[in-house]
């Protein structure tokens, strides 16, 4: 089992969710986050004063998958989240040791 942490531009959330659910993925966790990468921040103007905003708003999706779905999930996510511009985000892939469904106590891939 693997976990994908997908950081994307907020307005791409709907498309990525769509792409992942089309693969048959049943659950995702979404968090609004802020951060920076190679994309520079932007400036905001308030009554003539200019402020640089370093941390840009992003959305982080966490999804746990069976091994065989990982590659296609990555591929679909790239397709859905890409604008071609800097700041499109990243996907981090990590192994997952165990998954437990709290209601039934099921473990492993059954519980995903």
């Amino acid at each position, binding site marked *: 089992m693997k976990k994908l942490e997908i950081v994307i531009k907020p307005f791409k959330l709907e498309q990525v969710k769509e792409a992942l659910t089309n693969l048959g993925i049943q659950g995702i966790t979404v968090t609004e986050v802020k951060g920076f990468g190679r994309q520079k921040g932007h*400036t*905001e*103007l*308030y*009554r*003539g*004063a*200019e*402020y640089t*905003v370093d941390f840009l708003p992003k959305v982080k999706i966490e999804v746990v998958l069976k091994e065989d779905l990982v590659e296609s999930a990555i591929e679909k996510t790239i397709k859905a989240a890409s604008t071609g511009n800097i700041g499109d985000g990243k996907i981090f892939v990590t192994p997952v040791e165990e998954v437990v469904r709290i209601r039934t106590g099921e473990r492993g891939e059954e519980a995903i």
Partner: protein
Amino acid sequence: MFRSLPVACLLTALASGSAFAEETLPAIDSGSVAWLLTSTAMVVLMTLPGLALFYGGLSRSKNVLSTIMYSYTSLALVSVVWVLWGYSLAFGEDIGGVIGSLAHIGLSGIPLPGSEVAANINMGLTIPDSLFVVFQGVFAVITVALISGAYAERFKFPAFILFSVLWVTFIYAPLAHWVWGGGWLARIGALDFAGGTVVHIASGISGLAVSMYLGKRIGYGSEKIIPHNVPMVVTGAGLLWFGWFGFNAGSAVAADGLAASAFLATNTAAASAALGWLGIEWYHGKSPTAIGIASGSVAGLVAITPAAGFVTPMASLVIGAIAGVICYFAVYYKHKMGYDDALDAFGIHAVGGVWGAIATGIFASTLITGPTGARGLLEGNPVQLWIQIEAAVATLIFCFVGTAIILKVVDRFVGMRPDPESEMLGLNQAEHCENPYN
């Protein structure tokens, strides 16, 4: 107070040291009464919720309730002070051109409907004296509330209360007397239709004094200190624009052609100032912003306040546009100066107010004031411009020095600035034990 006729009557009455004789009083005019009742309510709306939302949105969320409380409490506090002694000091019988007598303390001598005395015995207007009292009272309210834009986010609530009571007593009341109560500024012929000096220069310069005395907010210049709710700012600005029709057109103190003309000038100046600020911000800064258009309209409303009943619609267009541009730069250069006028009470109200006073001296026109009425520089009367400058400078000095003295007293008795921990936590929590958004 604002029209040549009542002012003349008033001065005569004050000079002779007596109220009007019954037979010389004009009749109460129901149209004027209706309009002034409406105007008064509109001016209340400017403070609450207009200014409360405008300033509240401009402050950080951790201080929004504290900022709103300054406006709300001003409405309550100053309304009370006004009927107890404020009105009397401003509009009581003149003492040496400086202050009104205490004859009307607790509104004594203000006729009530059941009395046999004429309702307008003291002021000789076409509205009852009691209506004039409350109309003037809500002007005092908003003036005190406007100052809070300068000291927002770092003024203890008890200090605010003591400061406001002293300020309305020792600064506002005398100043209102000088300009509208038959005091020395009225006698030298200073023109202030609806409160450019009394309300805007006074609140702006006093705000500057408080912000200098208090010092900068923690993090000013290093941290990002930005408005927390722009739609709130815009809602507040909209209510200010609306209420300002009561403020300026109501200052005709009658439902007549002058009120209509002041109304037109007010809307025109607000509009051209909004565009002026927007344009200069776009050209000089980067982009046209919502806070920019809102701030610009307020700057225009401030500038047209003293001029509304003296200038033509085309003059108001010019006055507004220039106000938008100079107030933009006043606020822009604030960031390079040493004071922290948090929400720009000085940059918009004092700067816009001084421009309005000067503009009145330039543009006052007999097309509005009549063949024998006031006229400004453009109609060949440079003296008027000089008088306007004199009035503005006198107001600036009096308010700055007077406010500094009041601050010494407040500092001595209650202390003014919250401790750094409270300031960083935010005054919602530190001063009011309340959170705005739960």
